[in-house]
């Protein structure tokens, strides 16, 4: 694949161009599927891994922090493999920790693993945000969108005092749910380097 073609793909993904993403999806899903299914995953895991890897790629493109030394497809495949191994390891399905990053096939692993840790954390935060009550989602959604308490009060038709209390209650229960997830403990105890 030419440099220009690669650039077009990356730009398309960054723009959120559906046609480009669709082609990219078709080209790569087969590889990823085979890998995940062969390593004790199921169809839903395939989707999760693929989409998490796409999000990671998208965010790196958006922040201009993507350094690709191999072809984009090789890079993407390495990201997917690492995400999946990381999850397997955290689920203790894979016992030998040493196996995880000692794969001579992809030396990209080292660079990628840090990005993935960060992504796993985000994945967890989004997951529990979705589990909140609708009221909490609404209030916190406005908070995270940067609205002032006055604006939040007027949009929810709560008094400002009640909106503040609600915000605290919701945020507290969100943080507590996240902390209870075994994956969070894993992420927390991992040395970061």
């Amino acid at each position, binding site marked *: 694949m030419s440099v220009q073609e690669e650039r077009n793909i990356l730009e398309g993904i960054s723009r959120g161009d559906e046609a480009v993403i669709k082609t990219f999806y078709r080209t790569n899903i087969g590889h990823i599927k085979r890998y995940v299914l062969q390593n004790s995953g199921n169809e839903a895991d395939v989707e999760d891994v693929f989409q998490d890897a796409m999000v990671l790629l998208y965010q790196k493109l958006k922040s201009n922090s993507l350094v690709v030394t191999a072809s984009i497809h090789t890079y993407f495949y390495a990201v997917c493999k690492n995400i999946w191994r990381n999850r397997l390891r955290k689920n203790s399905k894979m016992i030998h920790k040493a196996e995880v990053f000692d794969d001579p096939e992809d030396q990209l692993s080292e660079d990628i693993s840090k990005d993935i840790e960060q992504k796993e954390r985000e994945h967890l935060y989004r997951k529990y945000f979705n589990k909140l009550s609708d009221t909490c989602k609404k209030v916190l959604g406005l908070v995270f969108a940067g609205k002032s308490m006055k604006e939040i009060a007027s949009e929810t038709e709560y008094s400002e005092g009640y909106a*503040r209390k609600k915000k605290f209650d919701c945020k*507290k229960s969100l943080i507590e749910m996240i902390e209870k997830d075994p994956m969070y403990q894993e992420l927390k105890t991992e040395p970061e380097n």
Partner: protein
Amino acid sequence: MERNQELFEKIEGYLNKTLSQEELTAFEKEVMASTALQEEVEKHRVLHETLSDTDTLAFREKLIRISQEIKAEEQATSSGSSHYWKIAASIAVIIGVSALLWFSGFGKDQNEDLYATYYEPFPVEDTTRGEDTQGFVDVLTEYSKGEYQQILPKLEEIVNAKQTDSLGNRSSTNQFNLYLGNSYMNTNQEKKAILVFESIAKSSKYYENAQWYLGLTYLKLGKPTKTKSILEGLIQYNGVYKDKSVKLLEELP
């Protein structure tokens, strides 16, 4: 460190840089003195950073939609090609499988019995508050009456509309996906039901429900092996479907 409203507001003020100089100095001193507080501030920072990124959320929803489109297209092409050989192969498989089932004493009937025992339509839940519920209510009333065929077009429309709305509430999309999947199950469109249930990601609060119905769909299709592996997943997930999964798994051959 006790979590209270005052502490949270101080942390937020610190992160948003809205504390007065005096408050800031005092808070920084507190932070320096406590690792627990440092961790707490970091948690809040990551939380705000992650969840304020609606751009990424929208990108992710786009991916889900694209993946569904691709799956639907694949389904359409694979059913169109090499028809003759497929029929021939199916007949061979049917003969083989029936012979096997005949001898093993376990048949389609038993799968159907188990399906009938365990299947209950996904119950109607409250829709998201504040959402435009006009029209949804009617569909859901019909759904609870079992008028699946009738409401299918409307349900498909709702799910599509929710998916194209990039900022749409994903959990409510998944809730409607469950109604849609159940309606497919009840109108002999199992393949479509499978696609819908598979589209509900692990991160969704409806993932467990979707897996349960996915398992039952395979049972209805007479594929208990697939059902088994899904049930094992549900048991591992250790949620509300665990007990049912254990029981059903025991009853499967």
